[in-house]
């Protein structure tokens, strides 16, 4: 037997052992002197070679195909049709991912086709997947197995330029649901709607996190486009710069929850748009407000209280030395107007993260610097915003998170990243020295009362009349608002 034939047999033995992940009589090594892969007997010293193991076999390229898509195409494929499909080509051909799986494909697309066990010509660049019945034990079915609508199991192999590529199947929704199932039932949030207004760092992170939790319906409102400066904090990246934030977030949500309905509104939250805002609020189970200016928050507060929809307002303090989240349960807890009246300093302490934020409070002879905080310091606030939204969405559903109702019953939550000089928090003790005093890096739920004279949720007219000794019933009625 020639040396070449022996080597070929040893290579086959070694590859079989690798495929079965069992020890064999031969192993593969990379011979650094000859710069090629050779097979050697197990136990032979190979000081000038690198071992190739079963783990290295996982480094081979892989094709990922959607099970959901294949089930839909199956009636045609079963009849012998060749169905076209497109793949994102990633990392110099290391991975081919079906474009239908997500909203953001690669810049390199490969045309492909799926057919049921037939001869094929795979000499060109087209990626052809041959699906064949899988006779293996049902208990061993994994990601490489596709279960057809009739219950039969199939495997597939990809072919491109006469080379084979392993194929795995992605069953997206069941897989995503499985990862949440310890805490949330698979579809418990799929019928819930969240309106998110303001897609800066906080609002955008809340949107993505709620998508990961399985929220099924989103309405997104923001007029801004993503800029380069946003990228150090925003979930959107450099490749998204210039796009409206609502579009960026729609894609990010679909990348996490492909079945979510996402309605987008590239508009500003202003009095002029209150008609459409009222419509959106009426459809929402919870409203999340991530805007950082008072007029928009107060307008939204009024509309949400009128519609009796729970709203959450999140915001960072200047340079994100801390932040706060206010939850408004209309007519049950203080509204944002009550908050401003009760704590004007806290309500005015906002992050100046853009030129427009600075212009809102600057004077020509007293400029205000744009001083955004770190993403790291905004994310605790975004997380709390998301957590409170999640608890409100689950309020009528029994889950293991129901236990948290007692922990999150305050209307206002305060967080500090650092004891900022010049603030009421500058004298807080160091984290390591305090047991029962307030410190940084802890959430504080704080209670305060509704303002009975609140113009939004209280009886403002009666209170004003009383302060002037007037009987409110003797006052002429107010004109109807246009």
């Amino acid at each position, binding site marked *: 037997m020639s040396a070449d034939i022996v080597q070929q047999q040893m290579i086959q033995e070694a590859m079989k052992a690798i495929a079965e992940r069992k020890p064999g009589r031969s192993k593969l090594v990379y011979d650094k002197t000859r710069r090629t892969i050779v097979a050697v007997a197990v136990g032979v010293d190979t000081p000038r070679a690198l071992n190739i193991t079963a783990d290295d076999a996982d480094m081979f390229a892989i094709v990922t195909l959607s099970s959901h898509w294949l089930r839909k195409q199956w009636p045609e494929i079963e009849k012998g049709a060749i169905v076209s499909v497109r793949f994102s080509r990633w990392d110099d051909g290391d991975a081919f991912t079906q474009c239908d799986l997500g909203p953001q494909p690669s810049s390199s697309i490969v045309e492909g086709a799926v057919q049921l066990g037939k001869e094929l010509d795979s000499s060109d660049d087209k990626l052809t997947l041959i699906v064949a019945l899988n006779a293996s034990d049902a208990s061993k079915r994994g990601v490489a197995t596709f279960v057809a609508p009739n219950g039969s199991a199939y495997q597939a192999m990809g072919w491109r330029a006469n080379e084979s590529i392993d194929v795995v199947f992605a069953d997206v929704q069941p897989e995503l649901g499985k990862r949440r199932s310890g805490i949330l039932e698979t579809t418990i949030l799929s019928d819930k709607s969240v309106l998110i207004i303001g897609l800066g760092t906080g609002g955008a992170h809340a949107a993505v996190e709620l998508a990961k939790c399985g929220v099924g319906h989103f309405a997104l409102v923001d007029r801004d486009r993503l800029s380069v400066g946003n990228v150090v904090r925003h979930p959107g990246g450099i490749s998204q710069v210039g796009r409206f934030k609502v579009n960026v977030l729609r894609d990010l949500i679909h990348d996490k929850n492909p079945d979510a309905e996402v309605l987008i509104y590239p508009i500003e939250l202003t009095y002029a748009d209150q008609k459409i805002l009222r419509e959106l609020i009426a459809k929402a189970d919870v409203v999340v407000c991530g805007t950082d*200016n*008072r*007029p928009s928050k*107060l307008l939204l507060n*009024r509309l949400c209280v009128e519609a009796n929809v729970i709203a959450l307002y999140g915001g960072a303090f200047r340079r994100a030395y801390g932040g706060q989240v206010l939850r408004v349960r209309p007519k049950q807890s203080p509204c944002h*107007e009550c908050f*401003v*009246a009760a704590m*004007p300093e806290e*309500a*005015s302490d*906002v992050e100046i993260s853009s030129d427009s934020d600075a212009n*809102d*409070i*600057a*004077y*020509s*002879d*007293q400029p205000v610097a744009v001083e955004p905080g770190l993403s790291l310091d905004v994310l605790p606030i975004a997380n709390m915003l998301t957590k409170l939204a999640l608890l409100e969405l689950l309020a009528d559903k029994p889950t293991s998170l129901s236990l948290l109702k007692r922990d999150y019953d305050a209307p206002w939550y305060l967080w500090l990243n650092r004891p900022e000089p010049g603030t009421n928090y500058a004298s807080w003790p160091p984290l390591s020295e305090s047991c029962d005093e307030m410190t940084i890096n802890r959430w504080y739920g704080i209670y305060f009362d509704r*303002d009975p*004279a*609140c*113009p*939004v949720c209280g009886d*403002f007219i009666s209170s*004003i009349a009383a302060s002037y000794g007037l009987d409110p019933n003797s006052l002429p009625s107010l004109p109807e608002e246009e």
Partner: protein
Amino acid sequence: MYVNYPNPLKMANGAPISSLGVSHKMHTLAPDANGMVQICHWRDARWHSAIVLQKVFLKGLLWIEAYEQHLATGRDLAEFVHTMAETV
């Protein structure tokens, strides 16, 4: 809240107040297109609906008094009137 007469309204040095634009030392916001001075009371970022118009008019009266002091002394108007508090 605008001062519509006289227009232009001048500072102690004779220059129109509107030339300052949004000015902290003279408590003004952006003048209107015809140059009328806008008196600063509560900016959008500090406004809330519990601030009654009575308070806005009060700021107008205070501003006029402070303006007279500015003309008499040449000192900044901001030295005679404080920023309006946000509390109701």
